[in-house]
């Protein structure tokens, strides 16, 4: 990475930080960039580190104040209720994916990271099954109308993009879950992704069932029914496990008793 490109990356990373942190980190990273060769480190690594910091710790710092965190929690809660409510009214079997949203919100509240990771995993599996179903839908319709075929391809593409996002999010959340706490940025992204998965799923089943009703095509009907079965069979147990993990996790992480006593002993010395 050239020096000017690395400096541009650092300027970009610093620009995304809260104002109170911006100047401090810009100067620190530029100094690290200049001194990287002295320690045999690559400038690209420093630039990547700055960008990663801005997208993780820097982003989370925006929600560090209790007021900001409360506001975001409220927004996510309202959006979750609206989306889940609308989806349930229009298509009652979506109860299970709606439960996943609830799990994500509850997971945020009690920091049950494994539950959140499982919600992401459910989205991941759910989208995988949908993608396969769209392709099956296209392939099994004997003579689909051009509009139907193009819509199916659009849905396949949309699902594929969401699927990749779900995979990345799952990997990220799972990494945090193994270590402990997870930041609000990750929770917001994971909750949003779960909602997106449900919207995509809803559109998919709506299209599938609508086509089956209109076209009297049994293969489309089969695809829609199979899709619903696969989704709920996969998402249902995951939601139950998420619920279990969420309810059995302690509300706030704290150091183990041995760690606390060890530290206390060290300090008293």
């Amino acid at each position: 990475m050239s020096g000017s490109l690395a400096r541009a990356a650092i300027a970009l990373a610093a620009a995304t930080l809260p104002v109170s942190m911006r100047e401090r980190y810009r100067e620190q990273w530029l100094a690290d960039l200049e001194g990287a060769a002295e320690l045999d480190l690559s400038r690209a690594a420093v630039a990547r580190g700055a960008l990663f910091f801005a997208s993780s710790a820097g982003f989370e710092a925006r929600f560090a104040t209790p007021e900001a965190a409360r506001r975001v929690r409220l927004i996510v809660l309202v959006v979750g209720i609206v989306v889940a409510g609308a989806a349930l009214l229009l298509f009652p079997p979506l109860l299970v994916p709606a439960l996943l949203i609830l799990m994500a919100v509850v997971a945020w509240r009690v920091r049950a990271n494994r539950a959140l990771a499982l919600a992401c995993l459910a989205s991941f599996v759910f989208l995988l099954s949908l993608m396969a179903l769209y392709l099956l839908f296209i392939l099994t319709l004997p003579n689909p109308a051009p509009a139907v075929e193009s819509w199916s391809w659009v849905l396949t593409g949309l699902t594929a993009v969401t699927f990749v996002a779900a995979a990345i999010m799952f990997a990220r959340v799972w990494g945090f879950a193994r270590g402990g706490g997870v930041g609000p940025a990750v929770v917001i992204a994971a909750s949003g992704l779960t909602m997106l998965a449900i919207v995509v799923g809803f559109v998919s089943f709506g299209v599938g069932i609508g086509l089956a009703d209109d076209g009297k095509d049994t293969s489309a009907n089969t695809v829609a029914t199979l899709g619903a079965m696969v989704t709920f069979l996969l998402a249902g147990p995951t939601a139950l496990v998420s619920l279990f993990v969420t309810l059995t996790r302690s509300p706030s992480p704290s150091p183990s008793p041995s760690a606390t006593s060890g530290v206390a002993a060290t300090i008293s010395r």
Partner: protein
Amino acid sequence: MKPLARVTPATVDVLAVLLDAAGGRGAAADADGGAVWGLRIIKESGRPPGSVYPILERLEGLGWLEGEWEDDPARSGPRRRYYRLTGEGRALAAATVSEFEAKKVAAQRASAAIVIPIVVTPTVGLA
């Protein structure tokens, strides 16, 4: 001073570098009283900057570390950021690293102690 909610191997590596600089793990204390350049922590810990920068931010926020700007009139340009463990932070860091290493050793011993039973079945006289 707040405890760490999450202790990862990368966090332990960073704390170990800072403890070494402060003379807390047998090494000689740094000439600057334990203050270490942030980029040197990255180098010494062997962890990528994307892991170390957030760890330093978290530790500083919790009061384990204090950061300070370089004060070297001989160098021009942007100033380097130095970090040192606070008095209480040093005690917490030492306890955290010791506990992590003890758990690691215990886990290694436990995995080495697994015995796989071998059952030999006689095959003579079956006919």
